[in-house]
């Protein structure tokens, strides 16, 4: 009991059984079925492998123009930060006393950049960029971080293929991790 609580995040066992149990409760006949076009229009979360990335493309050059007009006011002309966060640099700093966490130094998966910009940026007009524009600014930010060349054109396949420097930098939750804090009941 205690040990299961102390190591609560174990997904392995009992999942299928749990799903079955959830399905065993009565159906109430509430709501209506969602249609495929409705789902397609709202289903905007992109997986880390980029399988759900949409068709479309954008170049670093287009991204540079868009970034200057739509993003630079908050993030700085070269993504150095301002009202909005710093988006560039910091590679190699994570284990130092002063880690600089940016898209280039910290983000594990490139498709997340498309996902986040599409849903949340620019801060003052989210969901205003079309698919090609989101690819373009993503390409530009990756280029500023030295992760794609200046003549790159980014689409679903090429964005998914970008290997982020901190891809393997994440570990699972080891807590409780502070020694001596667990006391017998």
């Amino acid at each position, binding site marked *: 009991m205690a040990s299961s*609580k*102390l190591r609560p995040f174990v997904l392995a066992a009992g*999942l299928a059984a749990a799903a079955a149990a*959830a399905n065993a409760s009565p159906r109430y006949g509430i709501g*209506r*079925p*969602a249609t495929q076009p409705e789902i397609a229009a*709202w289903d905007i979360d992109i997986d880390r492998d980029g399988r759900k990335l949409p068709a479309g493309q954008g170049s670093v050059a287009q991204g540079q123009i868009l970034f200057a007009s739509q993003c630079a006011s908050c993030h700085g002309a070269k993504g150095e930060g301002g009202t909005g966060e710093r988006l560039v640099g910091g590679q190699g700093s994570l284990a130092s006393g002063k880690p600089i966490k940016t898209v280039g130094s910290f983000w594990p998966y490139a498709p997340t950049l498309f996902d986040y910009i599409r849903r*949340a940026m620019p801060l003052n007009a989210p969901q205003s960029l079309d698919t090609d524009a989101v690819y373009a600014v993503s390409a530009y930010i990756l280029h500023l971080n030295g992760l794609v060349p200046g003549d790159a054109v980014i689409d679903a396949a090429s964005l998914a293929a970008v290997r982020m420097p901190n891809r393997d930098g994440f570990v699972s939750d080891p807590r409780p991790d502070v020694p001596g804090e667990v006391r017998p009941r």
Partner: protein
Amino acid sequence: MSKGRRDGGGLESPQRRHLLGRGAALVGGAVVSGTVAAQEAGSEPNGPPNIPDWMKVPGADVGSEPYGTPSPFEKQVVRNIPKGLPQYISASSRTPLQELDGIITPNGLFYERHHGGIPEIDPGQHRLMVHGLVETPLILTMADIRRFPSESRIHFIECSGNPGFEAMSGRTASDLVGLVSCAEWTGVPLKTVLAEAGLRPEAKWVVAEGADAAALTRSIPIDKCLDDAMLVYSQNGERLRPQQGYPLRVLLPGFEGNMNVKWLRRLNVTAEPAHSREETSKYTDSMPDGTARQFTFYMEAKSIITRPSGTQRIDRGYNEITGIAWSGHGRITQVEVSVNDGRTWTVAQLQAPVLTRALTRFRLPWTWDGTPTAILSRATDETGYVQPDFKALTQVRGMKSFYHNNAIIPWRIAESGAVSNGFVKA
């Protein structure tokens, strides 16, 4: 006085307004020092033997406030809103913990953390989509959601950055850990809604998305969804406040606040987490070796003394020490208080009810002899976990992990009775 009263044509008494002004000055003084010297008998206009002015005229009309608000004498009890931020679209405000009693946070004082501002959502137009690894993808209206069997439960929600490891210099309890609040929530168990759509066996995560301008997205492990997770539409008896996700939010008792997605519009049942920006770039805990812990969901046991606490002042003699304790892993089983800077600890009294994953109020009677000291509290939860001190925490995690700081908070008491943050050099 109130607009309603004038509009209602009730008595408008100049005397009443006069009273209000004088009262405010008096109360202000008393709150600040707590040491107003006993007045000479008969010198207080509304104390004995005089008849208080407010007994000599009828009060405000019934219904003069269609939605009641606190007494004007409580004007200072408001959210703790940081000043001078570059923008307030993605920001937070804190609950004034040191001003509150009991375990329930008044709805207007619940802490806020939004990433795309507070949307104004018409519940008649709001839709929840449930799709992905389900038998029947569903669209639910708010009316639909309220038809499911409902449940009410009391739980805290706490932001995981409460406070950051490098932000320990706050003056008040609110400055330090005001990103925690507690309410009675009403809604439908998430598992009921998932069962309505029919989970497929490969379902391992549910990606929840808000209808705010950040379309905030977090992935929730399926075992939590099938355990105590809820979709809630009410908070302390009334509909959710816009700041808490009106008309619908996820409630994941004990999990970091950010996962309790507000303004919920979509649940995508998946085999893998989304690895969204809020679970990679943010809400991951950076360690000294450069790695970052991901999916650090639970808020571990924590407590803070809210009275006496920073910026307050105490008198010699009897003082009640009181505060709140909570754990994402279950019930609080014990809170100990030290009145001598951690040398010895005394078990505090826990106020019933002591509920799982809810704030728990503790108290300890104390007589202060006037010697400068520091007072601390530490919580133990039902797993046997004991709240650590800051040094022990940062020895393991360094100073850059930002999230999940549940360190013991010391309050220093000066000879004057002034209370201040024990982390800040006197």
